[in-house]
């Protein structure tokens, strides 16, 4: 995926100013920035929920504006920050919605769909709850259901908007490890928006740091993140501690 000279504005207020960035295949890329820096807008532009004013997002060299919703859903799966469904919907029913892009009026669901649904539920460890209604699940389990629904789309790219909000720390780590294993074991390209700097550093390979609608840093994590760039992105002075294999930001 490639972002080329992308600009966007709400009315007269410019949100993104001609930004460019590259999402490398098979990597985990995290979009970082303070509130109102335009990261949600960027996410919506990358997921075809908004139309750019100029520039575009390209998938395998093709502008995603020219890819129809259905085709796009076969290539890119998205987990939004906030999700809801009727309380009595079962886990399996929800995961099965992930097969929507492959269904049509003439084609009923077949064994390929069944396999994809079962697989998605096993990968996310929710198979044992498959007949339970959504309202009986914990926050962490629900989030895994939404991820399973996206996985059932069988895409190579997965985009997640703040997948750990509303969750306590134990579930946050569970979800992020799951995402990491999707990347490592299945080779999925992952793009996510994260708030927590340390989690972003720990779990991702690449970062895109935004401030006021511009890209401040982007690229390989170790090169991109240091005290100076963090100061520039978030506007606060944070200490960075380096150990043998990881960086930690003292966010206090």
């Amino acid at each position, binding site marked *: 995926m490639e972002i080329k000279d992308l600009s966007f504005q709400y009315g007269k207020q410019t949100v993104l100013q001609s930004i460019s960035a590259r999402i490398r295949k098979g990597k985990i890329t995290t979009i970082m920035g303070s509130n109102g820096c335009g990261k949600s807008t960027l996410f919506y532009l990358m997921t*075809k929920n908004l139309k750019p004013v100029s520039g575009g997002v390209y998938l395998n060299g093709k502008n995603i504006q020219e890819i*129809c*919703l259905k*085709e796009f859903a076969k290539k890119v799966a*998205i987990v939004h920050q906030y999700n809801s469904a009727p*309380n009595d919907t079962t886990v399996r029913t929800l995961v099965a*919605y992930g097969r929507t*892009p492959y269904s049509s009026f003439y084609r009923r669901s077949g064994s390929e769909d069944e396999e994809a649904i079962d697989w998605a539920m096993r990968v996310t460890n929710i198979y044992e709850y498959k007949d339970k209604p*959504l309202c009986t699940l914990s926050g962490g389990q629900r989030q895994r259901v939404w991820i399973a629904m996206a996985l059932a789309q069988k895409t190579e790219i997965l985009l997640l908007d703040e997948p750990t909000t509303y969750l306590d720390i134990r579930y946050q780590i569970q979800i992020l490890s799951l995402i990491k294993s999707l990347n490592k074991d299945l080779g999925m390209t992952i793009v996510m928006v994260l708030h927590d700097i340390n989690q972003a550093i720990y779990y991702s390979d690449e970062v895109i740091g935004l401030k006021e609608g511009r890209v401040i840093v982007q690229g390989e994590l170790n090169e991109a993140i240091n005290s100076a760039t963090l100061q520039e992105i978030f506007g606060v002075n944070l200490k960075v501690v380096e150990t043998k294999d990881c960086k930690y930001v003292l966010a206090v």
Partner: protein
Amino acid sequence: MKKTLTSFVVLWLLLAGLIFASVNLGSIRVSLPELLKGLFVAYNENVAVVFDLRFPRIIIAVLSGAALAVSGVLFQAVMKNPLADPGIIGISAGASFAAVLVTMFFPAWFFFSPIFAFGGGVVACFLVYSLSWKSGLTPLRIILVGIAVNAVFSGLLEAVNYMTGGRQSVVAAIVGANISMKTWDDVHTLVWYVLVGLLGALAVSGRCNLLSLEDKTVRNLGVNVHAVRVLVSAVAVLLAGIATAVAGVISFVGLIVPHIARLLVGSNHRTLIPFSILLGSFTVLLADTAGRVIAAPYEIPASIVMAVIGGPFFIFLLRRSDKTYGN
């Protein structure tokens, strides 16, 4: 699963029993063997009277009940709002106003009045959507705008009724939602439109399920949410419009029936819609039958019975509506 099946079976039996009871309520009574014999074998004067007077009325109650209930289910799916009812948000009033205008000015086109009613419903629906749209739809704003739209069309309807001195019985019948004088002609008008509408509703039931997710999520499943909304709304308006053109405005059916149906069979539209068809038929027929019995020999229209029961129910739903859609 078992609860769903039981609910279906019990409701079928209740509906069959109610139809038979309704056939037999009044000054003429026929037994079941008499009825079957009179219908299919030999002429029987009593059965013939029942056939001409009570059958059309029963069938119309059944068909319009089904149509209104399903219309309510569809509006609730589209608006993500458990309080949406074609009667309350002005769709039925718009439809009946159009139907009344046609019967007044072009009586010869009477057979097409459902189509005009559909047109009136579309106008009302468009008004409700466009006026309550403010970077998204919020449930409460839809209801408030809907009530205003409803008031305007109901007012116009009453005005027309007064302008004709209440003499045009067709107009009065639609305004008062009186289905006591219905004939087989009315049944023929209604039945095809209702069948098309109900089949349409069954065909979009899968899409209705998707609409219960967040819009962004549905979009990223490769579905054009706006197109689905327009399609489902069109079916809902069609159902409400045709029912209204023949049976008049009957509010609260589209509200009460889907709500009870959800409690019994859950919120999956693939079972919810068929169940609402049965339960809607049952409810309106019950209201109409009760209206015939309560103050016999005088009759209370089904719409009034529904309003008296539906009002308190609406308040009850309003009070607990925040629990209906969870995370």
